[in-house]
């Protein structure tokens, strides 16, 4: 692995913007924060996966993956990052390295030719070139190829050096951010610039969530300069350094970008969320305050408050009909990071009971927020083995599971309602409208008559009594808060 990549990763692990890192001692900090993976019991994507997730939503560029087929072939066009126009980002482009290329050392040449073919066919404003394990192993220098191709063809070729084996998805997110800082952000100047320009970092416009937020910003006269990277265009990201404030929405994914943009261009940043009513309001408030501090007109703060009270009122009015239907229903919330705590308050407001929440990917900061919300020592679990979760759901410890796709079938096989709140979801849950959508989906799922029908034993099974399943030693899920 190249020296430069090693140095980059070491630097990423020593992130002064990261509270966890700052809290560490000198020795612990040197070790970095990658957790060792256990062979045979690991789940989750690699660094390349993370890099691709973070950058793929840039819609008008071609994402070219340099490697053997699987890296792109098994994973392209698989998320719902929506676009308001260009479709180029959905193309699955790969050098599809063959045995001969690897043995003969033809990788770099093949990559160069692939870049040319892509430019000839699509003339994109830029090409993002991703390295993967095999080219990294055989020493292909994608930086050199990209540099040469950029000069030769006049189309920016951006090298993303995040081969899978260097670490986790989260590290890949950050390496993608580094690539943006090194090669994209600040390379173009915007046509115009206003005192209310902002960037949103770490929002990928999954199922169009950005569009649930954009109208709110528009009503306040706040201009979204660049969303990094949901529904973004290359030139928007390239001119992102002219924004006045950065909002970081996905906890730690792009914290390095936020901090370095502050260092380089003096753009202050804050961490906020558009999941949940209270969180959305807080985010808008903070945005307004920070923009005014940077020269926006002072009445923005009052206008924001007006919008917040109107929108909150409207949201609660729309949620009111569901309160009766959902009160007392028990939710098992099983997902990492921000999403967990962001929606807790809305669910509680509906009278729903949280029985357990996962803090698998949450930072210490996140955990404290959950504790504050739940009041005291919340019932937080790091992970539940599938067998246990199956038994808990089968036993009826919870009425619904909110999680990502990985645990979908645990719930369904236990004949328990399940709602996808991770990146593969098909519904948009952001902003005030998003919370109404979430509650509506919860209700639709819980009130579906299918559950009663599928739980019923077949007539010939009824004589044998209750179906047997193994729940020995499985702890009960208890209500929290």
């Amino acid at each position: 692995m190249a020296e430069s990549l090693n140095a980059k990763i070491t630097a990423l692990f020593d992130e002064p913007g990261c509270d966890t890192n700052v809290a560490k001692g000198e020795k612990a900090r040197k070790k970095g924060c990658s957790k060792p993976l256990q062979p045979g019991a690991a789940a989750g994507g690699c660094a390349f996966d993370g890099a691709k997730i973070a950058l793929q939503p840039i819609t008008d560029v071609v994402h070219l993956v340099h490697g053997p087929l699987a890296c792109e072939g098994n994973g392209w066009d698989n998320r719902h990052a929506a676009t308001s126009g260009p479709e180029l980002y959905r193309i699955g482009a790969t050098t599809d390295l063959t045995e001969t290329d690897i043995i003969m050392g033809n990788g770099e040449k093949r990559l160069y030719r692939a870049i040319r073919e892509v430019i000839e066919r699509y003339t994109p404003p830029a090409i993002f070139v991703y390295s993967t394990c095999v080219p990294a192993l055989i020493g292909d220098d994608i930086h050199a190829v990209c540099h040469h191709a950029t000069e030769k063809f006049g189309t920016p070729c951006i090298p993303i050096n995040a081969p899978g084996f260097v670490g986790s998805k989260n590290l890949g997110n950050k390496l993608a951010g580094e690539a943006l800082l090194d090669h994209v952000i600040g390379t173009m100047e915007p046509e115009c610039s206003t005192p209310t320009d902002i960037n949103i970092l770490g929002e990928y416009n999954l199922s169009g969530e950005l569009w649930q937020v954009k109208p709110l910003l528009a009503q306040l006269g706040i201009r979204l300069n660049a969303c990094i990277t949901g529904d973004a265009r290359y030139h928007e990201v390239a001119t992102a350094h002219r924004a006045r404030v950065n909002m970081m929405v996905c906890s730690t994914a792009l914290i390095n970008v936020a901090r370095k943009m502050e260092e380089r261009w003096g753009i202050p940043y804050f961490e906020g969320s558009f999941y949940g009513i209270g969180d959305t309001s807080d985010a808008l408030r903070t945005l307004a305050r920070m923009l005014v501090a940077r020269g926006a007109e002072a009445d923005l703060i009052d206008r924001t408050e007006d919008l917040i009270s109107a929108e909150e009122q409207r949201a609660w009015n729309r949620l009111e009909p569901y309160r009766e239907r959902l009160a007392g229903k028990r939710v098992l919330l099983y997902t990492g990071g921000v999403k967990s705590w962001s929606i807790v308050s809305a669910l509680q407001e509906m009278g729903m009971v949280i029985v357990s929440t996962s803090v698998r990917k949450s930072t210490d900061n996140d955990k404290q927020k959950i504790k504050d919300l739940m009041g005291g020592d919340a019932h937080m679990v790091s992970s539940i083995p599938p067998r246990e979760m199956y038994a808990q759901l089968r036993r009826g410890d919870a009425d619904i599971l909110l999680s990502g796709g990985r645990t979908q079938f645990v719930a369904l096989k236990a004949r328990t309602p399940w709602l996808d709140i991770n990146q593969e979801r098909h519904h948009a849950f952001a902003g005030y409208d998003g919370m109404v959508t979430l509650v509506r989906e919860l209700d639709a799922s819980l009130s579906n008559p299918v559950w009663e029908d599928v739980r019923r034993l077949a007539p010939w099974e009824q004589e044998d009594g209750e179906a047997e399943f193994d729940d020995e030693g499985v702890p009960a899920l208890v209500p929290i808060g």
Partner: protein
Amino acid sequence: MATVIQRRKAASLNPLKSSAPLGAALAYLGIEKGIPLFHGAQGCTSFALVLSVRHFKEAIPLQTTAMDEVATVLGGASNLEEALLTLARRMKPGFIGVATTALVETRGEDSEGDLRLIMERNPELAETKVVLASTPDYAGALEEGWASATTAIINSLVEPWSPSIRSFQQINVLPGVHQTPADIEVLREIIESFGFYPVILPDISYSLDGHIAESWVPTSLGGTSLSEIANMARAVHTIAIGEHMRTPADTLTAMTGVPATVFPTLTGLEPSDRLVSLLARLSLRPVPGRLRRHRAQLVDAMLDGHFYFGGKKVAIAADPDLLFSLSQFFAGMGASVVTAIASTGGNRNLQRIPVENVIVGDLTDLEDGAAQAGADLLVTHSHGRQAAARLGVPLMRVGFPIFDRLGVAHEETVGYRGTRSLIFRVANQFLGESHEHRPEDFGSAIPAPVITTEEGRHASGTFATH
């Protein structure tokens, strides 16, 4: 006789292929209490896992040796060992199928040797059968991976013929990767109807068909049992489907002496007839009434359906054996295959596809070919949806992956019954596209003159010479 053209492109744009390790994983999922294990970085597994879950809409127990930077530099043997021990301890599988990935193959690791040493020094693995197939991502695709894994299983788990083995009314079946769980079910019924006991390897009909189990199972939900695999030498015959299953079939024959027939396809009237008459000959039984009835239904379906196939232009992109099978089917029903794209080029059946050129390429080649030929139907997996939308041509989803339709496991394509449902599926697709005739469809309300000026001059010229 088609010419197979290898495109000299450096970039694959919208890949048609799925990788070989994924094919191997699917095969391993057809073994009872099995777990596939990818020997590589965790991303290799993650992508394959997500794709398989989207296709089958089932939990897929796919695991990884999670090679990190250190393992990549120093070698992955200890990762393989730790993974096997962890799986044996936590999930108690009966079978673990290891598929290597490009990462370890590029390093040039001797994974076979590593595995032998690991098995020798770890008594806790004695209860678990472990099989390893070499499936680098940079060579072959789904079919090669599936076939390699099947061959590896045969080599390690089948007991070679010995004088003590008594023949039994058993038929071995080696289905191709393009057979759905429903296809395997159809084959089982046909074989059983002649009084044979089918041993199907790999058998995904119960592990990937989508059903609700009575408890949480961390391994595959069903599949060929290890004892059945061991006893494959007892069969009177082996039936393999698709050219890619020739190597596993030959391997099995060499080990057991059981003769094998490789069917290029089992879709269509004639191939189904060949299967049924083979079984009748082997069993010395008459063809059961039920099958005769299914045949009569298929013939009727062909007659009813041929109206909608005739003159239609079809563009197909698939793995070679599926491409061959579908091309034969469409051509046999009167449609013309205008574009044929194969994911890999090694399969000799490609030359027998009824089309001028078979291109080894990607979905962009399919899109370009279909546009140029003015195709009426695109036939490929779900990733063809972008091309279909751009061209405004309907897409029939076949192969792997199909992630935007339900019930994929239950689509039948083999035997009389499977061919019948396939005809109806396609015909209904065409029927749905047809519309009520309007005057403007006919160019002009007044019938055009029989001879245009051009043709008239030409015609008179011809007459003049006579």
